[in-house]
């Protein structure tokens, strides 16, 4: 974590963007410029700047964003739940469809269900997100009107729900605003499905390959010898074992989605982490970039830790 801090800090300071100009604008008078420079602490040597920065991070102060003129922590509290919501539903879609698809492909290896699964996987991998997102909006929102459009919630329900956790669906449910809940859900489902397709492609391919390995194991034959039904052999014996490496795969793909998907968030006007960081970067808003990167690093470490713990639970050999 310290390494991550150091690297992101250095990158942010070394790149040839003048953060002062980002604050004061191109036409500022020299004395204004100089004052802003001192305010930002940029006159001190790099190591001192770093120490000051570290000190601030430990007190939960990630600085102020130039773009939003708010504390970066406040910004992240607002954007991260949006990404969390998207990534979680996306992963749920990917896992709940990807695992059965992968199992089916492994069981019918080389036959038509396998081919179908392969094509779906190929689609998920290779269709550009922006195209899929736009087509999805065009079809399900503009033409059919089945789902909500861009944004997290319709204008009618804007500010209806007081942010507590920041995760809109949870907040709405807790406050009993069910109409707002369903409206939020209808906005969430399409972008999640777009992310979910990618996750599905990945999870199903990995499930297939793990399952093929497991189905060749001796214990699978032993289970059949006992007279167990093929369904029990596949789901209870083989998949239970394939699940051990799958935990890591799912965790990594979840962490990847949690970084925020810039393209998806842009197309769906989703106020998430990916868009926040990209915006900040384009505007040389270095405090925001640093803060965002830090959050991503923390999320990665957290998810990995969680997957290790989960892996231990599903695999008795590592206990």
């Amino acid at each position, binding site marked *: 974590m310290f390494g991550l801090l150091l690297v992101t800090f250095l990158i942010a300071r070394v790149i040839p963007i003048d953060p002062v100009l980002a604050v004061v604008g191109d036409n500022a008078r020299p004395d204004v410029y100089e004052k802003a420079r001192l305010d930002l602490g940029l006159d001190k040597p790099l190591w001192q700047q770093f120490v000051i920065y570290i000190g601030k991070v430990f007190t939960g102060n990630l600085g102020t964003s130039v773009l939003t003129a708010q504390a970066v922590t406040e910004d992240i509290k607002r954007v991260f739940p949006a990404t969390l919501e998207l990534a979680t539903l996306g992963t749920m879609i990917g896992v709940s469809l990807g695992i059965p698809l992968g199992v089916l492909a492994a069981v019918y290896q080389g036959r038509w269900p396998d081919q179908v699964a392969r094509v779906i996987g190929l689609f998920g991998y290779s269709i550009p997100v922006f195209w899929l997102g736009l087509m999805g909006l065009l079809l399900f929102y503009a033409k059919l009107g089945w789902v909500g459009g861009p944004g997290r919630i319709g204008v009618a329900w804007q500010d209806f729900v007081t942010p507590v956790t920041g995760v809109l669906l949870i907040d709405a449910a807790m406050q009993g605003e069910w109409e707002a809940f369903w409206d939020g859900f209808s906005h969430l489902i399409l972008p999640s499905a777009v992310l979910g397709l990618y996750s599905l492609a990945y999870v199903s391919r990995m499930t297939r390959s793990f399952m093929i390995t497991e189905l060749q194991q001796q*214990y699978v034959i032993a*289970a*059949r*010898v006992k*007279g167990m039904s093929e369904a029990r052999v596949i789901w209870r*014996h083989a998949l239970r074992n394939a699940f051990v490496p799958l935990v890591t795969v799912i965790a990594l793909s979840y962490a990847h989605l949690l970084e925020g998907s810039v393209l998806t968030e842009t197309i769906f006007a989703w106020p998430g982490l990916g868009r926040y960081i990209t915006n900040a970067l384009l505007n040389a808003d270095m405090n925001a970039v640093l803060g965002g990167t830090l959050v991503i690093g923390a999320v990665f470490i957290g998810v990995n830790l969680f997957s290790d713990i989960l892996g231990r639970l599903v695999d*008795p050999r590592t206990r």
Partner: protein
Amino acid sequence: MRAPDTPLEQPLLELDNLRVNFHTPTGIVRAVRGLSFSLGRERLGIVGESGSGKSMTGRAILDLIPYPGEVLADRMVYRGQDLLTMDKRSRRKLRGRHISMVMQDPKYSLNPVHTVGEQIAEAYRVHHKASSREARERSLTMLEAVQIREPARVYELYPHEVSGGMGQRVMIAMMLIAEPDILIADEPTSALDVTVQLQVLKILDDLVTSRGMGLIFISHDLHLVKSFCDRVIVMYGGKAMETLAAGELEQAQHPYTRGLLGCLPDLDHPKATLATLNRDPAWLA
């Protein structure tokens, strides 16, 4: 001692001209090419080198030949039931309950993520309507029957926590809990230490004898088969070279069996060089 080829009473299993073929892109691989025998309540040994088709014979009886293999036979009858015309589902119901199999290496044939107890109980519950409590009781009794001292403790262990010998006893318990009539033991002691081999064999023998089961004992160990079985089929290249009473193995006539016997080292009469096998393609004609 029973005479070869004439098992007492009605046979448990009759096989006539069993063939197992695998259709591969490079042609048909014939794993078993016309094997016939009948099995009574006896211990029948099948010996042969690797690739002689002995394991495939066991798998074919259980309907566990993997895709793209096919099983053909002129006759395949278990206690009057024709296995060839039986549907997949009924064949599955026979597995475990009527015909079961102990495999070579408990390290791989027990599922690593379930406790051994769960796996034994499961084998019982597939075939019997029983509460989990009852299945557990049964499993503990079965673990005792294979001479495991603290069944309640072992029940909770995972496969990687038990030794090879204990694992194989667990395997035997698992495969016998539904009380099958026929047990196929496919190299059941090959993966075990020599010291525990005899112990496991003794347990297997006691259970098979006391329950009056038919045993098909697949092995490449001639000594073992000679001392353990009533009758022996010697297989080569998917065919039976000859069938003998175990006691008459030393007097075998077939050149392949003689060759196999000639390859065995003998501690009492050490030879400078061991004979190598001569394989005559004419045997497979």
